[in-house]
């Protein structure tokens, strides 16, 4: 093993840790991406859906005469008809005890359960014609009582959405650790708050898109999909359409943003696949923006009562919390809609040392758009609750917010450790991160500035938010519960005759830089220039089986598979080289695509020459020399269920107490994702994540009326962060590699979203503190702030 003494950082020409640009970015700046809507196939048809205008309605029947007669229409298909092709599904997992849900169809069969649920489909030669014909469908619907409000969903008087389930409680988890009651009894101060975290959604700039192409001649379904997990989709399509797994191919080329939105099974997408099978023609569905707002999964929608006990020296001794979340009428398939609440229970209080913790989470059905996992699942809620309580506790005992965190975070030298909720930490760096952040932001200088400005009637606030983040999930996340979602990933490498390397891998790219990271790792492991590595992702026919990209797993899990594969290919190449050169393989190395003497760096032969001999003149090699220039290695973390990362964010902002407007002045983040494979990509993941978190904190909310109608389901009324309102964001790192893998990389894509809302809300409350008021709600819109100030 020539490289056993060398770490990846010592490897000559290592790309690890370098901010190399993404090879696939050049294509995108020239408009040469291929998103699903750009895919052209012959005889393509388009589907548009009639969607329920009611939050709850019985489907009595349809008059389809005019729609069927309309120009360009190939078929008008109801849920009952489609159910003969695609079987329904139920979004439950075995390890969430008691989680229940109802069967969900691709198109509603006898009942619509939210505004926007597809109840009939029109397939036509153009999307415009399909939409024209949708307008001609006469649907006979009987509106049913609506359960819209989470707080009353469990009341006896509230209609049960799925009567056969007995009640509207999808899932409940309770936890009681240590002696919570004693801790509260003995506390110097107990602080309490109810936190409201609004419902919001992902707003991927590319809407959900799918093109399904059933080829009847070979019995094969090819699906072009804007999606994060192609193998999962392949498995589900094959099982619900009764096809052989190998007869379903899912291709995910360029994906225009995902953020967890595009990792779930959507009824209209399954319907599109089923319609292609039914009509034996390719069928495309691209959600328009109005459809996106009522059919993309929503996220959050939590109300948390919580309290914290603190001693007079600032020691946090106990946390108690009660979370209620509304998930719409179905638990989403196959990941379920219980995961977010479960993670709120797991993560609340997670950065701190207290061991007394009582939690309850209840997940209830409502007649609203289904809720499921979106970027930083559960984290922003847990962090807002925890960090809000920490600031309240600090105020109660008159301690500085930075100081109380300093006294309570799990010490860097105390690992491995177990949080009160039972989650296990391999190694975290809260203390280093906190000190680094305070010095980076000049915390004490800012406090002085804040105090000076307050004298002048300017209300600025500083908010801190310590966080932990779940990354690199093992099979403990979904697999153990029975979901057929791969926890492992494989990477296959092939040395081409001219010396280039082709990598195909199960993790996928939606803009994070996955393909760049894999190319960096492979180039480093094999010893070739990065430009000589071509990476293939997002195709179930051509990549090893894998989970795709979600839960911050691409770099940590896919990267390690690529690293192991690269090392194995290098070893095989050197074995061939040793034979050709009559040299001991352990004395050879591969650098910049050349076989060299490892001691002197002297070039012995090019990889292209080795490739020429191995592929075209194998007759010149000894009879027992069988070059294996294709290798595959797999990786899955096994020693910990998750590789937790940690970090801390700070927000500095100004509140206009006359208008309620918040001006973000600056934002900082220190985070520890272990080995940083590409600093620029990591920093941009963190920045992008922070801005999505700021969106949740200040702007984004799916607003509903009591009848379950979404009131702001368009881009003009649903606000997302725009450039002018966003601050510059400084990002820094502490590096604590995970020992679970050789690379030591953990995930970084969700840290920003996890911590930003709490930092912003805490900063608003810090600004409002002299006015003896506070906000407890996301988004903290000007209206919320003016209400807190008593002006409206």
């Amino acid at each position: 093993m020539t490289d056993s003494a060398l770490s990846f950082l010592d490897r000559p020409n290592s790309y690890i840790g370098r901010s190399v640009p993404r090879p696939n970015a050049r294509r995108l700046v020239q408009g040469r991406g291929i998103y699903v809507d750009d895919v052209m196939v012959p005889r393509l048809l388009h589907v548009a859906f009639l969607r329920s205008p009611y939050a709850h309605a019985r489907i009595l029947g349809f008059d389809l005469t005019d729609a069927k007669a309309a120009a360009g229409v190939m078929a008008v298909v109801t849920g009952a008809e489609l159910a003969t092709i695609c079987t329904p599904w139920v979004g439950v997992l075995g390890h969430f005890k008691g989680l229940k849900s109802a069967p969900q169809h691709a198109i509603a069969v006898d009942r619509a359960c939210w505004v926007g649920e597809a109840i009939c489909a029109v397939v036509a030669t153009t999307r415009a014609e399909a939409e024209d014909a949708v307008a001609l469908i006469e649907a006979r619907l009987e509106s049913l009582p609506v359960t819209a409000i989470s707080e009353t969903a469990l009341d006896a008087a509230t209609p049960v959405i799925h009567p056969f389930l007995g009640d509207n409680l999808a899932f409940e988890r309770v936890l009681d650790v240590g002696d919570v009651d004693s801790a509260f009894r003995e506390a110097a101060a107990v602080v309490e708050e109810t936190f409201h975290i609004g419902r919001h959604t992902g707003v991927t700039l590319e809407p959900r898109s799918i093109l399904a192409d059933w080829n009847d001649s070979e019995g094969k379904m090819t699906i072009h999909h804007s999606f994060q997990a192609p193998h999962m989709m392949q498995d589900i399509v094959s099982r619900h359409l009764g096809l052989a797994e190998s007869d379903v191919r899912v291709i995910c080329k360029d994906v225009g943003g995902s953020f967890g939105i595009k990792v779930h099974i959507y009824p209209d997408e399954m319907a599109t696949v089923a319609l292609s099978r039914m009509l034996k023609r390719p069928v495309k569905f691209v959600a328009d923006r109005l459809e996106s707002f009522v059919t993309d999964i929503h996220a959050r929608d939590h109300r948390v009562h919580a309290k914290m006990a603190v001693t007079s020296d600032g020691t946090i001794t106990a946390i108690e919390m009660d979370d209620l979340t509304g998930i719409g009428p179905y638990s989403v398939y196959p990941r379920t809609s219980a995961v977010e609440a479960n993670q709120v229970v797991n993560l609340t209080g997670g950065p701190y040392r207290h061991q007394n913790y009582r939690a309850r989470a209840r997940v209830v059905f409502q007649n609203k758009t289904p809720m499921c996992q979106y970027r930083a699942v559960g984290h922003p809620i847990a962090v807002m609750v925890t960090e809000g309580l920490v600031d309240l506790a600090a105020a109660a005992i008159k301690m500085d917010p930075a100081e109380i965190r300093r006294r309570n975070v799990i010490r860097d030298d105390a690992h491995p450790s177990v949080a009160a909720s039972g989650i296990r930490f391999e190694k975290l760096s809260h203390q280093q991160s906190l000190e680094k952040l305070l010095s980076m932001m000049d915390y004490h200088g800012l406090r002085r500035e804040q105090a000076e400005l307050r004298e002048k009637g300017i209300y600025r606030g500083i908010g801190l938010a310590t966080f932990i983040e779940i990354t690199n999930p093992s099979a403990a996340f979904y697999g153990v519960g029975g979901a057929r979602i791969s926890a492992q990933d494989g990477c296959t490498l092939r040395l081409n005759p001219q010396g280039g390397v082709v990598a195909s891998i199960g993790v996928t790219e939606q803009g994070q830089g996955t393909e760049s990271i894999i190319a960096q790792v492979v180039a480093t492991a094999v010893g070739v220039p990065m430009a000589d590595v071509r990476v293939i992702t997002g195709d179930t026919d051509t990549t090893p089986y894998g989970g795709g990209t979600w839960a911050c797993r691409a770099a940590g899990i896919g990267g390690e598979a690529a690293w192991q594969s690269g090392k194995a290919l290098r070893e095989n190449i050197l074995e061939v080289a040793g034979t050709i050169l009559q040299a001991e393989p352990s004395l050879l190395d591969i650098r910049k695509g050349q076989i060299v003497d490892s001691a002197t760096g002297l070039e012995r032969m090019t990889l292209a020459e080795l490739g020429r001999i191995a592929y075209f003149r194998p007759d010149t090699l000894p009879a027992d020399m069988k070059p294996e220039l294709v290798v595959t290695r797999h990786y899955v973390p096994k020693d910990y269920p998750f590789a937790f990362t940690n970090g801390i964010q700070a927000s500095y902002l100004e509140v206009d107490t006359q208008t309620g407007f918040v001006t973000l002045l600056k934002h900082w983040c220190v985070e520890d994702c272990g080995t940083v494979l590409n600093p620029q990509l990591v920093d941009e993941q963190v920045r992008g994540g922070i801005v999505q978190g700021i969106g949740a904190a200040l702007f984004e909310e799916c607003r509903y009326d009591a009848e379950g109608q979404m009131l702001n389901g368009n881009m003009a009324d649903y606000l997302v962060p725009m450039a002018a309102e966003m601050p510059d964001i400084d990002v820094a790192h502490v590096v604590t590699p995970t020992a679970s893998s050789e690379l030591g990389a953990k995930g970084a894509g969700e840290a920003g979203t996890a911590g930003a809302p709490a930092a912003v809300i805490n900063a608003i409350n810090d600004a409002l503190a002299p006015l003896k008021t506070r906000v407890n709600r996301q988004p903290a819109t000007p209206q919320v702030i003016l209400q807190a100030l008593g002006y409206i």
Partner: protein
Amino acid sequence: MSATARISSPLHTIALNVNGTAVTSHVKARVHLIDYLREDLQLNGSHVGCEHGVCGACTVRVDGVAVRGCLMLAVQADGCHVETIEGLTEGGTISDLQEAFVSRNSLQCGFCTAGMLVTCTELLETNPQPSREEIRAAISGNYCRCTGYQAIVDAVDRVARERKAKRGVS
């Protein structure tokens, strides 16, 4: 109006210049410019993000001005010069901006990028030395859900400085 009446709407003949090439087409009155460009001319480098003029993903240049391709009908472009990301790329006039986007990682998923580049192109033409605040204001009609905008601001800022330096020595 019945569906038949709506669908049998007549075709209109338009003649325009797209990326330097004269084009004559027959389009329905209801077709948006962006759908015409993407579907009829297969210029799918510009994207459709919201179809109601908010997100900016479909921004293209019409007679030198950045417009929303979803808020203009194809028939309204009759007689106009239209430039898309394909034309801007081939013309080479924004290659520095494109390179700056690549090296600064000012894009992630890339879906907003064509529209963002068109807007930034117009900004640098009308205000060659924008402040960071002016850059942020100029692109505030183009949503980017991935980057958080800072890397875009950095790239535009860098190109503005580089172009200024270039002008200085020439």
